[in-house]
Structures are given as structure tokens and as C-alpha cells.
């Protein structure tokens, strides 16, 4: 069949992506070196990347093994001194995620895991039953690549309810394997190598990895305690006509900050002025406690330049189902869909049917969700304050960030290590969420997406064993 749907053929830029003769523009400068065979990756990364200075205990933990040092159980195979499968240079520095490392350490020490952000309780029965029914009804084959039609419709309906915006489910909604894939597909579909993208630190760790895969040039603006407000002057001096996109996560992981209307308006006007795209990660939008969640796409002039991403996992406590989506105007949705089709091709079919039911949940479901989480938050926040942490206000998500320095450990990683081994509780060191780890060395992140008993036990352990210096 003809490639009839491609409507951009008149653009001069339509030529196969070719890296044999790197462009001479300055934007490509950082990458032309990257093309040379034998180029050492360390200097490339040092020039515009954070310094990777994880202490040794993390480096020794294998991502795939429950042992500290993976033991080869191979039978006698020819001695291989030369490793022919050489990992791509762009990704050599991305090792195991901090979450996996911490979880494994938690198991080893029998620690209570308030680190990784998934619940230890399960999703609602009505959603699980819908998935089971779909499996039994034989909905087990490939779904349409960009989403099961009913699900796309449900996403559009939900978006209208939440933002007032009317969108076309056929052209403007793309279903992905979780919001993680929505982010990857958005970056790979809409970002050219060398494009500037602005990130706010601290940031969820997959953002940087996928921007690296897209070959983007990352410009980072750090949000600082106590309120993690957007430094407007710094933003104004960072954003320019060279900026391709800005990524906003609200409600924000790890700080729990929610971008205010004023902040979003300011960012919006700068984006319009400089013709910048906005990618928003709004997976915690239903866990908005201290203020209403605002979608950037709903601000005047912003829908046409925004990709709004979300997922099922956090709202319905089904993080392992991997159902997410991206909402964008057709010319942007197109790019997201293309990349998506080469990343995973299609998303889990029975779960999409269940997600359709989930998104149509009555208001009472969301009200109860909020109530439950607010109760959990109260237990944790009060507990952390009693223990002696400096607790920063968290308006949304199920995370809270605290200053651990009253306990006298030299940095966040040392503190987390101590917390697991000596106290039996897991938190996440936030330095991994910054380009410059020093920015996070005083902060650690706790989660309260655990049942109340677990939260209370964790607080008890800390009260008992964590002493101020």
C-alpha cells in the first residue's frame, strides 16, 4: 500500500537520517566525535553529563543477579578474552537503576521498603475482574498499535472530564506500555540528535536515559528546597529559540511539588515566545492533595505544542500492567506513534480493556483514593518529623523528600545505606535524580504507597534506631 498518509513530503528535511557526514552546525559538535570508531566515551560524557560517582557498594550489585558478584555457571567454553558484543557507547554509563539496587539490598537485610514507588497493596477488584474477563473472552491478540478503540475513547473522555479539552481519540491518543514508554516514544519521535531539552532536577531517572538515546543535549534547571519553586530567572536565561522542548513532571517525583498556575503560565509564555514543545508527565495527577492538578495542555495556546502523558499504574495500584498513554495534537501524535511502533509495536490487549473500565470509575473511587493516601501521608510525615528529619512539604504524589543531615551521615547514599543496614528501612538517595549529584546529597525520598501497618512499623524502627547526632 502507498505511504499515502505522510503529509509532510514537501518539507525539505525529508531525507533518510544519515550520519556519515555529520552536520557542520555547532549543535552537532558534541556528536561528531561520537561517530568516530574507538572514541573513548568517558570524555564525551564528561563534557555534558553528570559525574557518575556512585560509591562502590552500588557498583558491585549486578542488575540481574541476586548475588553480589555474578558467578558464571558456564561449563568449559572456549576462553573468551575478547568481548565482541560491545555495548553502544551512549549507554555504557547507564547501569542498574537505583530502585533495583535498593530493593535488592532491602530484601537482603529484611528492611521495610519505603523506597521503590509501587504499592504493597493491590488494585481494585472491578479493574482486575475486567482484565480477567477480557482474557476469558479471548482478547489476547495484537491490539491496534496506537490503542484499542474503546480505550482511546475512554482516555479522551477522561481527559475532557479532567481538563475540559475535547480531543480526537483516533488521531490524538496513543497507548503505550506505561508512561515510561510514552516518554521514550515522545523523545525518540520528536527529538533530533543535538536538540536542546530542558529538564527540571531532581527528575525521574528514565528521562535522562531516553534523552540520551535520542541524542539530545540536556539543559538542567535545579529545583531547590524548601518549596522547590521554579527559578524563573534561571529559566528565562536557559530557554531560547534553540530549545526544542521542556519536560515537566507534575505532580513531581521525587519532591511532591505541584507546579502552580503562575509557574505554568510563565513557562507557557516562554514556550510560546520561543516556539518550544512541552512534554508533561502527569502520572500522579489523581494524587493531588494540597492543590488542584493543572494540565499544561489546558492553558491558552498550549495544546498545540504539548504532549500530555499519563498512566494507569499509580491511580489504580496496578503498576505492573504497563498501561500508559500520550495525548497530543495530530502532528505531534504522529511522531510519538511512529517511535512507539518500533519500540513495542502494540500494548497488552486484555489490560487495555480493563483500563477502559478503570477510567470510567465513578468520582467516589478517586475521592476514596485521595482520602486513603492522605491518611497514609499523615502517618509517614508525622512519623518522619518525630524521628527528627526536616520534612519538606509535598503537595502531591505518594512521595516525600526529607533532609537527613541531622543524623550526621556524610551524604544521601551513605545515609540510605546506614538506614537499610542499621535501622531496617529503605529510602531512595535523591542524588541520582540530579545531573550534579551534590545537589541531592542532603535529601532522601520516602514513599507512603504502603499499607498503614507497614508505614507505622517503619516509623517505629526509625524512632528506635535512628538517633540525631
Amino acid at each position, binding site marked *: 500500500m502507498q505511504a499515502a498518509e505522510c503529509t509532510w513530503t514537501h*518539507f525539505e528535511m525529508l531525507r533518510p*537520517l544519515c550520519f556519515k557526514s555529520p552536520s557542520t552546525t555547532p549543535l552537532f559538535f558534541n556528536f561528531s566525535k561520537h561517530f568516530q570508531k574507538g572514541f573513548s566515551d568517558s570524555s564525551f560524557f564528561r563534557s555534558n553529563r553528570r559525574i557518575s560517582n556512585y560509591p562502590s557498594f552500588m557498583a558491585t550489585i549486578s542488575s540481574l543477579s541476586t548475588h553480589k558478584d555474578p558467578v558464571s555457571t558456564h561449563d568449559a567454553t572456549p576462553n573468551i578474552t575478547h568481548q565482541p558484543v560491545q*555495548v*553502544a557507547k551512549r*549507554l555504557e554509563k547507564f547501569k542498574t537503576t537505583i530502585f533495583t539496587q535498593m530493593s535488592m539490598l532491602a530484601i537482603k537485610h529484611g528492611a521495610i521498603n519505603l523506597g521503590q514507588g509501587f504499592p504493597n497493596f493491590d488494585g481494585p477488584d472491578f479493574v482486575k475482574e475486567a482484565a480477567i474477563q477480557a482474557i476469558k473472552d479471548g482478547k*489476547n491478540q495484537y491490539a491496534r498499535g496506537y490503542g484499542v478503540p474503546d480505550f482511546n475513547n475512554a482516555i479522551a473522555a477522561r481527559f475532557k472530564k479532567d481538563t475540559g479539552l475535547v480531543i480526537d481519540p483516533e488521531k490524538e491518543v496513543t497507548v503505550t506500555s*506505561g508512561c515510561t514508554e510514552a516518554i521514550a516514544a515522545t523523545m525518540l519521535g520528536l527529538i533530533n540528535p543535538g536538540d536542546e531539552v530542558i529538564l527540571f532536577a531532581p527528575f525521574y531517572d528514565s528521562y535522562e536515559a531516553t534523552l540520551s538515546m535520542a541524542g539530545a543535549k540536556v539543559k538542567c534547571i535545579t529545583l531547590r528546597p524548601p518549596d522547590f519553586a521554579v527559578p524563573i530567572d534561571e529559566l528565562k536565561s536557559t530557554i531560547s529559540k534553540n530549545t526544542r522542548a521542556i519536560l515537566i513532571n507534575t505532580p513531581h517525583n521525587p519532591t511532591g511539588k505541584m507546579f502552580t498556575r503562575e509557574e505554568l503560565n510563565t513557562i507557557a509564555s516562554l514556550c510560546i515566545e520561543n516556539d518550544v514543545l512541552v512534554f508533561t508527565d502527569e502520572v500522579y495527577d489523581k494524587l493531588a492533595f494540597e492543590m488542584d492538578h493543572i494540565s499544561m495542555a489546558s492553558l491558552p495556546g498550549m495544546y498545540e505544542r504539548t504532549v500530555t502523558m499519563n498512566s494507569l499504574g499509580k491511580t489504580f495500584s496496578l503498576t505492573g500492567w504497563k498501561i500508559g498513554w500520550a495525548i497530543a495534537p495530530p502532528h505531534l501524535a504522529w*511522531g510519538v506513534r511512529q517511535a512507539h511502533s518500533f519500540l513495542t509495536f*502494540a500494548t497488552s490487549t486484555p489490560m487495555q480493556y480493563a483500563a477502559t473500565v478503570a477510567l470510567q470509575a465513578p468520582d467516589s473511587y478517586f475521592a476514596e483514593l485521595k482520602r486513603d493516601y492522605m491518611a497514609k501521608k499523615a502517618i509517614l510525615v508525622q512519623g518522619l518529623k518525630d524521628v527528627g528529619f526536616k520534612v519538606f512539604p509535598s503537595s502531591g504524589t505518594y512521595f516525600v523528600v526529607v533532609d537527613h543531615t541531622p543524623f550526621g551521615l556524610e551524604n544521601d547514599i551513605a545515609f540510605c545505606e546506614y538506614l537499610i543496614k542499621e535501622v531496617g528501612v529503605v529510602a531512595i538517595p535523591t542524588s541520582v535524580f540530579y545531573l550534579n549529584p551534590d545537589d541531592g546529597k542532603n535529601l532522601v525520598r520516602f514513599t507512603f504507597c504502603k499499607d498503614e501497618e507497614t508505614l507505622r512499623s517503619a516509623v517505629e524502627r526509625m524512632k528506635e534506631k535512628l538517633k540525631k547526632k
Partner: protein
Amino acid sequence: MEGKLSSVAKNFTPSSIQELSQLAQKCNAINLAEGFPDFPAPPCIKEAAVSAINNDFNQYRRVQGICDQLALTMKKTHGLNVNPLTDIAICCGQSEAFAAAIFSIINQGDEVLLFDPCYETYEGCITLAGGIPVYVALEPPQWTLDPEKLMRSFTSRTKAIVLNSPHNPTGKVFSRDELEIIAEGCRRWDCVAITDEVYEYITYDNQKHETIAKLPGMQERTIITSSLSKTFSVTGWRIGWAIAPASAASAIQNIHIRITDSAPAPFQEAALTALRSPIEYFETLRGEYELKRDFCMKLLGSIGFRIQFKPQGSLFLFSELPKDCLLSDVEYVEELIKQAGVVVVPGRGFFHGNESCNYQKRYIRVAFCKSGAILNAAAQKFGELINAKACPKILY
């Protein structure tokens, strides 16, 4: 705003296979185009998934048991020693395993060899990662591999070769000799073989699928990708894997975590049940598909096709149009929809050569992974046309 699209995205066009499926749905045509079954998945595997959902296996997870089972299978079937703790990454389908494999080893400018014709998605992945696809044409009608042509295609920039066997769309199963030739190229040029073995259990006439990884010097330079989808008729579950030397497997796992984070948790649990299926399951699968293959060949024969290459594996029959037929593949497919209410895929989408080969517009691909009822319905439609001697455009 169109200028905001990356140049990579602008080059991509919708999946022609998916478009045809949508047309078929609109016309209510019999779908022999897209390669997924229309019969149910095995009940015990569905039960396992239901059970997993009920037992709260619904949060992020990575089920190590899948790796353990795969390692056992690799040893038993191919004699390969695979470390389940370090050599296997679980992904959202073979699609993601392949994408992650490409991203894990392809640097900007690396060349990747592909056999032509081939599944349309490989090229997109490679291009997305900044790689350059280079095609090596298999020669019709038997889709033979020319060793010299292959060797000439390797350059100092070649990083990898993609090997899909059993093969979509032709149904070819690469022979041991052919695997040796490819292996020789990989060893000589220090390249990686990335395999797509999703049809590994679907071979015919006592043909056995062999993985190139078992050849001398190959395990250390091969990334095997496969999935549950075709073996267990659960293409919508998105459970696949990559098996590779530890450094590559680790990179693939880490990339997978950044692309999707986790394969759907309840289906990982169900995969344990699936992968432990008794040998009878696989024998029955093969036997049933072989019957469908034979039926499909007769079907096409009845409307004038002369099948020159009998599928040795996969779910597809790839045949040239009858000599007397003057239509192109696309024209023929349209006629088939209109006159017979049956949809197949025009072959041109699988060819990528620079050579202006006429044959590239003369093939159609028929998927026979369909229930007996559907295949019979197609036969009936053809029968009606033959009896009525109607439609010279599709009868020869």
C-alpha cells in the same frame, strides 16, 4: 508545527499490514493478512494469567523463573549453556527485545545487514538508533542465500546482521550450511548476530529450527530474541526476551527498564506455565499449523497460483502471482478484497532493495494462522468464483 517532528519520524509511514487489517474490518473481509491467530490461546495458560491477577501479581516485577526455564530449554534444544542470572532480559514482546538489542549495540553510523525481503519493523528500529540498514537480497524463487553477495555486503562499519528464521514473509528456515556462511561472515568481520526466532516452534516436514548461536564462535556474538506470542497464540500479551552474553543482556535489560520498565506482570507469571508446556503441546502446534499450511497451498493453487517455495516454517505463505496475471501485488490484493472478500498482504512492503526488480511487486503474503472455519470460508468464496467462472482478474 510540522517542523517540530524529528526527521526520523517524518520518514516513517503507517504499518501497511495494520492498514490492511483495518480495511478488512471495514469490509468485513476474511483476514488472511495479519500474522496473529483468530483461535483462542491455550486454556491453561489463560488460567495462569487469571490466577496471577487474582493473586495480586500486579505490580512491577521481573520473574526470574522465566529465565530459569529458558536456560533449561536452550540447553535441551540447542545445547547452549546460558546463565539465567545474567544472560536473559525479559521484555514487552520480541518487538521490545529487538528494539532494546539494537539500542544496546548500535552506535550512530553503524551498518546493520538485513536479508531482503524482511519484516518491515527492523529497519525502523535500526534507523531510530542511528544505524544504517544494508540489505542483502535472498534470491527468488527459493530465497537462496548467495555467499559471495553476503560477504561483499560486510564493511568495516558493519556492526550486526539480523537473522529472522523461520522467516517472515517467505517461510524459509535457514539451513545449517547457510547459518555457517552467516557465522563465517560474523566471525571474519567481528559482527553481532541479532536473531528473531519468534516462529522457532513452527517448522514443517520434520524440519528443525536451529539457532545460529550454537555454531562455533557464535554464542559470544549472538543476541537471540523471541517471545511467547506465536508459540502460545498470545500476541497481545507482550512477553518476550533477549538471550545474550552477560554484557549485552545487562545493557538490554537496562534499556528495557528505561523504555517500559517492566513487562506486564501477570503475563510474566503465566509465561512460567507456558514455558513448561509438555512436548506434546509443541508437536500438536506444529502438526496443526502444517495442516493449515497445506490447506492454504491448495487454496492458492485452486485460483491459479503455482507455489514455487513451500514454507518450511512460520505462519506465512509467500507466493508470486500467476504468470498470466498482469496485475501488480497491490492491484491483485484490492481485487481479492472486492471480488472474494479475502485480504492478504502485497509483498512489496517486505522488499527494500535499490534494485528495480520487477519481482518485488509480484508477491503476496498469506497468513494461515486462522481457524479452520475461516480457512474454509475463504475456500468457499474461491469455490464460488471458480464455479461461476467469474472474475478473470483473480482466477488463472
